[in-house]
Structures are given as structure tokens and as C-alpha cells.
């Protein structure tokens, strides 16, 4: 019997995110967006065009432009969530989350716990991450800070399909979700296009679907080394794997899709097969996500490992400006390939 294929459209991540928001706002009156420059007529539709055109459909009460007040945005999202709404808030750059740290860490993450489970905070905070020649205060990858906060979920979509499915899951989740989007993956067009962007496009179903949190994806199957990477680094890892294949090295590339909850099982399964693990992360090295994954895997799969786990991360410096320095700072295909070759030296 022929199975009807769902209708799809080729979309960028920015378009896929917009579709997710549009569908959820149509589906549920409680969903609304708040952020800076998200619905101003003649404006940008948010820093990276994700909310472009939504104010025309939903009005300015549900696509709510805020003052430049990140703590206020996060706090208002917490309050609105407590009052029964499902806010989708955003900051223009993930770096600005630090302005809202108290609201995210002390309020959003802890209200449920402090109340003994009596209240819930179903909010989404979207944040554009990653180095893009904007230097130290507009180029950080602050995901690692938030995996350290019990009570927050952290999502990191790297494809258009995942962007829509994960954002819909985030909006329907009863818990606060930090939703990191990489600036070089959006595929924003026009004046908001990013120089040097990868802007992957993908087939995205036009109907309703969600992607469960805590389920990673195998982006490339392989047998010699497991590479775990998120956001932009997924693509760098895939390029490295492609190049290494020509040397006869078979890499398996995993994309966790969410950092909290984290699909440890997928990595353990893969490492059982490959016996080697490289973790690639644009966050600075010390205290970062890559180190956390390494610790978890050595605790759970030490017996399967044939080599020390290797981290490929940004160095412990602020994000530099000069393109030549930024290129050095952000892990690239060569860094990843080098790490893979190193773990393969342990035979």
C-alpha cells in the first residue's frame, strides 16, 4: 500500500523557525512572541528575520516589540508563563542572555522547584549563537552556561527540519527551554544575510510534527571514530569526516540536537562500535559542554574506549575580532581531522 508522503518545502533554518512559530501561534492562542525589533513595521523581523511577517498575521499584541531590556524580557516571559501563556522570547544575540541571567537562572529555572511542583514556567528563550566577525560581545556560544542550571532545557538545532520540529516541542514543553540558533546557519536573506554563512536548506514538512528532546541524530555513519558536535560544528565535523574518508578513516558524526536532556545512550552506543570519541564545540574549553560529555562517556563507557577522549573547542579566550584570529579561534575541519588522527594513533 502506498504511503502518502507529507508535503514538504525547501526551507532555510530561519524559515523553518518562522513556520514553527506561525503554526504554534495558530494552534494555541496562549503562544506569543516578545523581543526587540521583532514586529516593527519596516523592521527586521528580529535580528535574523525569524519573525518577519508574523506581526501582519497575528498583530502587535502577539508579536510584541519590547524595549531593549533583556532582564525585563526574560522576567516578563517568566511572569506570562506563570499566568498561563506560552511566551517565545528572544534576545538579538545570545551574548545578551547575560543581561537576563537572574531571571533565567534564579526565576525561570527555579520557580517550579521552589514551589514544590505547584507552578510551571513554559517559556522558550531563543538566542542566536556563534562567532561571526562580531567579536567578543556579539559572537559568543554561551550554551555551556545553561546546561549547568538545573531546571533549564537546552536545544541546539542544526538543520531546518530539526529547527521546526524542536521549536514546536520547545513551545509545547511545560518547562523553560533555552533555544540556541547558530547565526551562520539561519540562511537569513536580504540585508540580514550573513557573510560566510553556511545557510543549509532542507526539506521541511508543511504539516505538524515535533522532535522529542533528548534524541540525537546520526548525521553520518562510520566505524572508526565517533564525533559529537552541535550547531555549526556538525557541518565542520561532516566536512572533516568527508576528507578523512579519503584517507580511509570512517567517522560517525552525531548531533545531540538537545544538550539538556542529552542523548548519552546514542553516544555510548556509537562508542561501543568505534571505541574512540572526539567532541567538537564552539564554546570555550574550560567548564564547557565538551568536557561534560567527555566525563559522562568515560564514566559510562570507559571499558569500550581505546583512546583518550579528545575535545576540539574554542580556546579559553574571548571571541576575537580580526578574521584571521577568529578563524583560528573557531574549531575547523583541520582541527577536527587532526584530533581524529590523534585518537586513532592509540591502537
Amino acid at each position, binding site marked *: 500500500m502506498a504511503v502518502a508522503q507529507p508535503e514538504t518545502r525547501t526551507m532555510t533554518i530561519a524559515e523553518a523557525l518562522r513556520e514553527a512559530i506561525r503554526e504554534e501561534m495558530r494552534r494555541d492562542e*496562549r503562544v*506569543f512572541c516578545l523581543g526587540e525589533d521583532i514586529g516593527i513595521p519596516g523592521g527586521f523581523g528580529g535580528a535574523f528575520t525569524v519573525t518577519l511577517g508574523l506581526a501582519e498575521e497575528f498583530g502587535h*499584541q*502577539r508579536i510584541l516589540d*519590547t*524595549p531593549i*531590556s533583556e*532582564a*525585563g524580557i*526574560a*522576567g*516578563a*516571559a*517568566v*511572569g*506570562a*508563563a*506563570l*499566568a*498561563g*501563556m506560552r*511566551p517565545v522570547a528572544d534576545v538579538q544575540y545570545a551574548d545578551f542572555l547575560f543581561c537576563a541571567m*537572574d*531571571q533565567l537562572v*534564579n*526565576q525561570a529555572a527555579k*520557580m*517550579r*522547584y*521552589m*514551589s*514544590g*511542583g*505547584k*507552578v*510551571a514556567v513554559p517559556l522558550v528563550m531563543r538566542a542566536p549563537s556563534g562567532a561571526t566577525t562580531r567579536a567578543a560581545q556579539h559572537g559568543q556560544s554561551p550554551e555551556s552556561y545553561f546546561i549547568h542550571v*538545573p*531546571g533549564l*532545557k537546552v536545544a541546539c538545532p542544526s538543520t531546518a527540519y530539526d529547527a521546526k520540529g524542536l521549536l514546536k*516541542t520547545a513551545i*509545547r*514543553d*511545560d*518547562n523553560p527551554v533555552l533555544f540556541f540558533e547558530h547565526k551562520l546557519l539561519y540562511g537569513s536573506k536580504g540585508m540580514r544575510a550573513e557573510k560566510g554563512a553556511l545557510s543549509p536548506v532542507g526539506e521541511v514538512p508543511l504539516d505538524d510534527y*515535533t522532535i*522529542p*528532546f533528548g534524541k540525537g541524530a546520526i548525521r553520518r555513519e562510520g566505524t572508526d571514530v565517533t564525533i559529537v558536535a552541535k550547531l555549526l560544528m556538525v557541518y565542520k565535523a561532516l566536512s572533516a569526516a568527508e576528507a578523512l574518508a579519503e584517507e580511509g578513516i570512517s567517522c560517525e558524526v552525531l548531533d545531540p540536537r538537545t544538550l539538556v536532556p542529552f542523548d548519552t545512550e546514542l553516544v555510548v552506543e556509537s562508542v561501543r562500535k568505534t571505541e574512540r570519541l572526539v567532541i567538537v564545540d564552539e564554546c570555550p574549553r574550560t567548564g564547557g559542554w565538551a568536557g561534560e560529555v567527555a566525563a559522562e562517556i568515560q564514566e559510562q563507557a570507559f571499558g569500550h574506549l581505546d583512546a583518550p577522549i579528545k575535545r576540539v573547542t574554542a580556546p579559553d579566550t574571548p571571541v576575537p575580532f580580526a578574521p584571521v584570529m577568529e578563524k583560528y579561534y573557531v574549531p575547523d575541519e583541520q582541527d577536527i581531522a587532526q584530533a581524529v588522527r590523534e585518537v586513532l594513533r592509540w591502537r
Partner: protein
Amino acid sequence: MPLSTEQLLHLYRQMVRIRRFEEKVNQLFLEGVMPGTLHLYIGQEACAVGVCEALQQTDWITSTHRPHGHAIAKGVSMDSLMAELFGKTTGCCGGYGGSMHVGDPAVGSLTAIAIVGGNTPVASGMALGFKLQKTGQVVCCFMGDGAVNEGAFHEGVNMAAIWDLPVVFICENNKYGASTPVEQVVKLEKLADRAHGYGIPGVTVDGMDVLAVHEAIAPAVERARSGGGPTFVECETYRFIGHSRSDTRGYRSREEEAEWKARDPIARLAAQLKESEQATDEALTAIAAAVEEELEQAVAFARESPARAPEDCLRHVFTEEGAH
């Protein structure tokens, strides 16, 4: 419209309930039977009671690190409050919150936020949620004088102002942020003058007079409810005890304390009630006796309630059913 005798007696009873609750928990704490720390509300009772009297059951309050009085005034049961302070399963936060986070959403008392100024944008956000849903509910955001110097206060009040949100900001100016005198950290004579910077009304009232507080809050609540936007109400008050458990009050004089204690809001209302012949000494004594009974029962309830299992600390980080 003047309050009825019944309402006045209710205000009196509520203030006595808060006062005696605080004295009792202080005693239990000093006896070493109650864990944690305490920020007592003794002296400030007129603020919480005057405000909550102007609210409906479905309205909400947000509170601070000094939240017991607010919670009692909004209707959180003394049993569940006392049990929370003992960290018991029957506490209003199930033992997960403790003194600084008490509240009960069932009566519109949000789990208290103990970060100074941290509740301001949250209160505005709740009010935004109610406005978007057109529920007609109002949020009253309690804060201390210290909150007006926090960035979150600025962002939260400004948002409430530009969007005409149904929220009332109640600043209990008790003259000290821990040990620091307010005049050392604010250039203004009246904290209510901050309101002008946001384009909203700001008023200062005698926070030792429950009737004055109620009289100032009631129109602010109605203004908020009818879409008129927020009001900032400064209640000038005084905590009769220290900031927290270790405070010996070396930063203020006993003379100053005596002056404020002479303005005790409970004694003041008692005198008014007797002078207007709306209550006799016997009636007020009967109220006090009933409160004692309620209090003793709350202590017994709390002490006899089951303790938490240690590993219960692992629950309630996320909603247990997860995504849906």
C-alpha cells in the same frame, strides 16, 4: 466608601495573625527547633493587609525574601506556612522553598522571589499574561526600598508603564536595606518620585496605618483593572526587629525604634476601633485568643507532618510528565 465594622475587624485580625505568626516562628527559631533563616515582617503588617484587602481572591501578589506577612494576608493557610518553615511535606511549597519562597498559587500568592527586585519584571509579565487573556486579574508586586536600585526594577516597571499593564507596585520602605539607610542610596526624598520617571502615578502613604494603605491601594487596583496602567505606591514603614536572624541592629538607635514602635499599626487600629465604638476590648481579646488557637494548631500540624525523604530533592526540577 468607608470600610464596614466587619471589614475593619478583618483587617485587625489579619494583622494580629501576621504579628503572632512572626513572633511564634522567631521563638521557635531561637529555640533551635526551626531550620533556615528568617526575615520577619513585624511592624510592617499594615502594608500587606491594607493591600490584600483591596484585592480579589483571583488577583495575584508577588513577594520578596520577607514574604510571610504577604502570604498570610493573601490567604495562604497558617498550617501550610508553618509546615513550610519546618520543611515538611505539607508545607505550602512542600518543603522545597522554605521561609524565603513561601506562597500558594491556589490563593494567588506566587512562590516568593527572594532576589531583590527580581520579582518586578515577573509581576509585569504576569500582568501582561492576564491582559492578553483579558481575565481582569490584577497583580500586586511587593518590594522593599532596596528594590528601587535594581536594574530589574527599572526594566519591569517601564514595561508595565508602556503597556498599561494591570499591576500595582508596592514599595515597603522600611528605611534600611539590611543595615544601609535608604537616604544613603537614594537621592530622592520620596521613593515614589521614581514613578515620574516612568510616566506613572507615584504616591507615598503612611505604611503604619492600614486604612491609609488600603485607601491608597484600592483606587490603584481599580485603575489597573480597568486598563489605566500601573501605579507605584510607597508605604513608609519600619521593621521592629532586625533584617534577619543575626542582626543586632547596631546601625540604628533605640530612640528611633521607640518612635516607630509608638506607631504600631495594630495598636493604632485597636485604638481607632475602640474610639469609634466599633469594637470592645473583649472583642479584640477574643480575636487574639482565636489567633492563638490557630497558631498553636499550626505549630502542632507542622511538627506532626511527615518529613521529606532526602531523595525527594531530586523531584520537581522539571514537570514530571515532561513535554505534552
